[in-house]
């Protein structure tokens, strides 16, 4: 029987390991540049792609292979099953290209020629393509400046529009002079904006004229502007080191770039940023309240029925389903407080809400409420573990209760408080359900922090790693192609959570070790 019990533990650990293994196995390989295989089929046609899976039929034992054939714009699907019996020969073409594109996913094919902006063609090899591509990318970067100017103009114009709206709300007649001058100013901005826009379009069109002609495995030609190519490889002639380099480049992209193709490719930067900022903001709210409540319970309140009730209330707060917090956040913060703020300060913008809709502020407040019990329990525990003699010693030396608290107890309890903080952060990072109601979105156009006054935009919606998993994995149109990205996001989220939890466990053990031996 002892062994049966041991076996259940083995099953639990096995499940945990499986979870880790599945996530690691599916995500780590995603950035490794896989080789391209070309099959000649029995009917004489060619298929090229990356091998992704193989299975054999249950009855006939016939094997079939799954290829990622890419070229979504040509074939309208990313994957294709090929029966092994259909294949007449297989080769690994050295000169095959893998293009990562800004749209339509990857392209697999062969380079035929390069076309310059004036229409002249150049016979092409990888080096020439590389040179032309980096040139185009450099010019494209130059355009970023114009784009930045345009976005600044756009924001100034929006600010003016809101000002005009406010004046009109206060009385269009009385403020007509001011409104007119603002309108003129705005018209000027719009004109400048249009000019820049035209310039940008022109230059972009110019850049778009530089193209490369590729042919796919079947021989169909496809002319692609270099502008549309993110990067390209010849995977079959890459060395291990080149592949490792490409791997690092892609990880860099993952951490610091914006997402592409409705979040299924590119980077996770806005989601990481949103998650981190939301969690930090949450800690600002939850830490002080949690610590104060714990101090009250442990140091100030007199033990009795009331304190027992309060403990039960706090434990309950920890056990309330997170979705209930979401509902509360929606009803109280968003519609209640947010709606009132709008009525008070932004009546001219109604019915368009400013604070009366989900945003990062409401999300952090909701999660703060959700994680306060974690901080309370951890702080209380660490205060409780400080031997009574220390308190009495401090008081005997003439310190007030408050001085004892700030100068003696709190510094000693810091590791415990840190445990609570980190644990609450770990919980907040992984919590998705309440956020779905109070401000998380699949794609936020702007970060909640930028160079525009007042820098922190509490009313903005934000992106979140956990929601990213749910959204891309369950609500994107092409789930199969999006899966690797979801695994990568999952791994990232899991790493953050595990790192935070390990840190918390470490703090706690430190705390325990310090005081369990030092009883007076």
């Amino acid at each position: 029987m002892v062994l049966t019990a041991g076996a259940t533990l083995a099953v639990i650990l096995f499940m945990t390991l499986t979870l880790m293994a599945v996530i690691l196995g599916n995500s780590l390989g995603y950035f490794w540049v896989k080789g391209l295989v070309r099959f000649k089929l029995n009917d004489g046609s060619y298929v090229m792609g990356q091998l992704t899976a193989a299975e054999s039929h249950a009855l006939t034992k016939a094997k079939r292979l799954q290829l990622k054939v890419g070229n979504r714009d040509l074939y309208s699907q990313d994957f294709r099953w090929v029966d092994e019996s259909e294949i007449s020969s297989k080769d690994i073409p050295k000169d095959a290209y893998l293009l990562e594109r800004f749209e339509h996913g990857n392209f697999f094919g062969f380079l035929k020629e390069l076309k310059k902006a004036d229409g002249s063609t150049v016979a092409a090899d990888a080096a020439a393509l590389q040179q032309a591509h980096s040139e185009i990318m450099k010019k494209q970067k130059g355009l970023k400046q114009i784009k930045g100017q345009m976005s600044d103009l756009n924001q100034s114009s929006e600010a003016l529009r809101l000002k005009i709206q406010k004046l009109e709300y206060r009385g269009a007649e009385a403020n007509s002079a001011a409104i007119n001058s603002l309108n003129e100013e705005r018209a000027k901005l719009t004109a400048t904006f249009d000019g820049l826009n035209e310039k940008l379009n022109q230059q972009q069109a110019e850049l778009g004229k530089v193209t490369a002609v590729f042919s796919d495995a079947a021989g169909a030609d496809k002319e692609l502007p270099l502008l549309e190519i993110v990067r390209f490889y010849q995977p079959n002639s890459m060395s291990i080191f080149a592949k490792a380099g490409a791997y690092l480049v892609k990880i860099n992209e993952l951490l610091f770039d914006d997402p592409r193709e409705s979040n299924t490719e590119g980077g996770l930067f806005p989601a990481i940023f949103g998650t981190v900022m939301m969690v930090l903001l949450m800690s600002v709210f939850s830490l002080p309240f949690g610590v104060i409540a714990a101090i009250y319970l442990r140091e100030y309140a007199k033990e009795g029925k009331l304190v027992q009730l309060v403990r039960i209330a706090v434990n309950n707060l920890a056990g309330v389903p997170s979705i209930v917090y979401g509902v509360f956040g929606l009803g109280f913060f968003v519609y209640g407080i947010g709606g009132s703020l709008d009525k008070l300060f932004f009546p001219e913008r109604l019915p368009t809400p400013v604070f009366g809709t989900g945003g990062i502020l409401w999300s952090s407040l909701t999660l703060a409420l959700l994680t306060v019990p974690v901080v309370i329990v951890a702080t209380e525990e660490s205060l409780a573990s400080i031997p009574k003699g220390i308190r009495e010693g401090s008081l005997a030396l003439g310190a007030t209760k408050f001085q004892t608290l700030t100068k003696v107890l709190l510094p000693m309890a810091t590791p415990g408080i840190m445990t609570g903080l980190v644990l609450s952060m770990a919980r907040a990072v992984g919590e998705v359900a309440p956020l779905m109601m109070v401000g998380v979105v699949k794609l936020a156009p702007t970060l909640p922090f930028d160079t525009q006054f007042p820098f922190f935009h509490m009313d903005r919606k934000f992106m979140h790693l956990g929601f990213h998993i749910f959204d891309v994995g369950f609500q994107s149109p092409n789930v199969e192609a999006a899966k690797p990205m979801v695994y990568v996001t999952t791994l990232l989220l899991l790493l953050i959570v595990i790192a935070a939890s390990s840190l918390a466990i470490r703090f706690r053990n430190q705390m325990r070790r310090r005081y369990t031996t030092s009883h007076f």
Partner: protein
Amino acid sequence: MASSIVDKSRRNDRLAAWLIKAGGLFVIVAVIGILLLIANVALPLFYSPSAEKLADVPAELQSLVASDASGTHQTRELGEKGNISVRLLPDNRIDVQRKMIEKDLLGNEKVSQQSYQLSDSLPGAISAVWLGRKGQNLYAATANGWLVRWDLADEGQGRLVETVEAFKDHRKITALTTLLGDTSLAVGDAKGQITTWMPVRKPGSGEDKQLTLIHHLPGFMQPVQRLVASPRDKSLAAFDAAGTIKLLHMTSERLLLELKAGSGVAAAAFADNGRKLVVAGSDGKVSVWKLSIPHPEVSFSTLFGKVWYEGYDKPEYVWQSSAATDDFEAKISLMPLIFGTFKATLFAMLFAVPLALLGALYTSQFMSSTLKGRIKPAVEIMAAVPSVVIGFLAGLWLAPLMDKNLLMLFLAVVIVPAMLLIAVFSWKAVADTAVGRRLKGYEFICMMPVVLLGLWLSGLIAPPLEATLFGADLKQWLYSSLGVRYDQRNSIIIAIALGFAVIPIIFTIAEDALSNVPRNLAAASLALGASRWQTAWRVILPSALPGVFSAIMIGFGRAVGETMIVLMATGNTPIMSWSLFNGLRSLSANIAVEIPEAPLFGTLYRTLFLSAVLLFVLTFIINTAAELLRQRFRKKYGRY
């Protein structure tokens, strides 16, 4: 100088004490505040409606309401297609006039006129007629309690569909009207009763549907004089001869409001899209009421009871909050969701509790202490895995995998425990040797390969077995032979995923409780000659029972409220079936799915808040009970 510092620090101390007390109390108030605020949003669902009498309408407007849609001559405008009108003739026949406008491609209109008479022999004299708003169905009622239905859809003739003996006591039927959507017929009779009827497929009668009594609405003491349907929802206004007006809702069978007109009623109609009721009295006065009935479809029975909805063959529990059409009957029974919540929780607990408890027992009693120091953090990290990660893996990895290898899973359920049993027995042979003693406390590591071996073996057997026994497709076989429908995201997936989420919670708390049982109890038991297992099972476990029980309850509370896993790993179908192979929808997932589309302060919005209150109260009760148990346990054995 010194005294001022002391004063200052005393002042600070008092200030701080005050602030800390305020902060502490704030947190407590917040807990109660949350419940109150959510409940406050849900509460208006149960407010009673009200009506405000507006000024009487000037006499010159009286003609506008003088003729309402009932009476013996009724006309229905059919938009661009023309109109249709019926007239009750004195000889118990009905005259039908139909004007048809046809437009050709060029926009030329062709008007044709049809006229025919319905002269079917009827069981009694017609006492009320009602032509459906779409001009398709014609209903008539007789003075001796029969209902007659014609179908006027065909051109040039009306087809008698059925005559139904509505009331066995042959009472006179006095008023008819169809409710919004033209599916249900409201019938008022001479005894003051109001009932609604709709065509229902009878078992054995094939395609034909028969008018069936569905709802009894609150009636009058004297004959019903008139029924007027609301254009806004499935409610109606009923009038008796004395001028009493009752506003009723069909689905909830609620008496919404009772109003009093000064005298008998000559005509009545709803105005302002059902927000106002206009009544012309027989004394020539016209009264207007402004109605405020925010949630007529909500009652205790629609939220928690079986209701016979339009288009259904029998009363059922249904959650279907919205549909494409306006005349849709909202189905807001919370029962399928509560059922789904408990089904998911129950299956998850069946999976998690044995694993977690036995694992905790092993960890606390038999495991070597060095290993214990490693395992406990591992389980704590397992607890930190975000639910969205578990849900994602369950929905997109486990569900398709199981879809492909269903038989393997079933085999594994049998083979893995069997292999473990074999391993346990063969262990006995080595247990007393030197090797066995050294491995004491590490047994479970030896079990890992056995689990793997079992899985591998079932994977090996499954495909040929499936090919020979079930024609290579177990799911198809299940459906065709047993009639069991298989959903890819089903309750087994939920049990595993949700179980995975609650195992570490139960494990940690139960392990704590088991470890805190004083060692001298175990030592005494062992000294009396009990085996390790006997000691753990008969001495340690009963002593720690309150703590273990509270662990299970806290796990239960977590499973009840878990949202993301249930949202991602089920198909979110609100059905009530105990089948392992079907999906479900839980209260929490339902909130997440529906609240983005719920209009602010609408019925759906408030109903979702109500389900949040239910969740809150449920977990509150469970957690409080668990906490009380735990405190009692602590008192028994001290804290450390």
